[in-house]
């Protein structure tokens, strides 16, 4: 049952997008999307963690006892996130202090454990890598879109650069409720857009 690389990639980024299809990883989507810069670093962190965790879990899949797969996956993910955190603290101390606890929270990101459990455990390392990266990219795209709107409407800036015109800031956009509204709108648009594809694949 070899699945083509292209299909895995498209599934991860769009058809099975972790945010608006699987509705996973919502916690960090709501928490880190009020400023674009922080969101971008978070996304890079997730792409790295997802990629290496999927490859490792896939490489170990034949020796991992079935009943111990969650505990060993969690251990692998945690180890890689700690490594990431150390590198950020050593080489990018400013960004590391801005992100605060959120890098550590990648450990509990449902997408990582979800992809490891659902895909990497049953597939060879290379497809697992493609799946890990594309899922994380799909997550990143949605997060960046939400962050772009939230920062622009809430702070009047994009990645810290002021917009050329002035308007009343939508303060609610930078607070938690703004994240819920934006997420719901993105899911709605994406599902409405993807509707035709879903119907044709059913036939």
């Amino acid at each position, binding site marked *: 049952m070899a699945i083509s690389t292209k299909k895995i990639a498209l599934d991860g980024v769009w058809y099975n997008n972790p945010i608006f299809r699987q509705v996973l990883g919502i916690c960090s989507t709501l928490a880190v999307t*009020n400023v674009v810069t922080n969101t971008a670093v978070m996304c890079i962190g997730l792409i790295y963690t997802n990629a290496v965790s999927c490859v490792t879990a896939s490489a170990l899949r034949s020796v991992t*006892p079935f009943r111990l797969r969650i505990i060993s996956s969690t251990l692998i993910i*945690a180890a890689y996130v*700690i490594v990431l955190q150390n590198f950020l*603290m050593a*080489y990018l101390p400013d960004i590391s202090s801005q992100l*605060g606890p959120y890098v550590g929270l990648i450990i509990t990101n449902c997408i990582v454990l979800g992809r490891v459990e659902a895909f990497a455990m049953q597939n060879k390392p290379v497809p697992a890598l493609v799946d890990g990266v594309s899922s994380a990219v799909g997550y990143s795209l949605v997060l960046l879109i939400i962050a772009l709107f939230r920062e622009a409407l809430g702070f009047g800036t994009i990645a810290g650069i002021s917009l050329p015109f002035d308007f009343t800031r939508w303060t609610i956009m930078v607070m938690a409720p703004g994240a819920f509204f934006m997420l719901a709108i993105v899911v709605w648009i994406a599902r409405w857009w993807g509707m035709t594809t879903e119907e044709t694949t059913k036939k």
Partner: protein
Amino acid sequence: MSFIRNIAFIFVIAFLFAGLTSGVNMALSKRIELNEQTRLSKQLLEVLGIPFSSELSPEGVQALESKYVKSIKFGPMAIYASFDDKGLVQRYAFPITGKGLWGSIQGLMSLDKDFSKIDGLIFTSHVETPGLGARIDEKWFRDQFRGLDLTRKASPERYVLVQSGAKDAANRVDSITGATITSTAVEKMLNRDIQRILTEKDKIRGIDWQSLPKK
């Protein structure tokens, strides 16, 4: 049999990945510690109004700090002082601390040598919400406190008022939109610590800095 195999598997995998993380940690810990040390020293220099380039090397920061800054233990807290070329005190810096939304907020506040105004404010550690409460680190917010006159009060109980609006109130600074609890926390910790420092100001003035070794 599978029981023993399972235990062996977990043992091996835990050993491998713990080895990986501790290896990386050992390799990078010196650098992380130096970063942290340099960050704190830079914040101390900044709050004391000693100019330096942001590109300054860690060694340069240490040299500058030992040239202009001395510190002393004063009861439970530390006091830092900066000196001019003649060895006279220019500013004092005090650690301040308070309860934020998610955890404790720590910072440094500097006062002029007469204890009459705030000369600088910086936060050294906090866990406020990124993008909201964490904006207390931004320069525009901290700079508002510079020059606030401590010989008068915002209200009978307060030296400093952190609140948007009420433009004519004395010693008022803008709070952060969407971070009411953090803004109030900053106001509380400042007022309490200013009060504490001002009651001790004669003792602090009497400190003999000359006899202290350089930091």
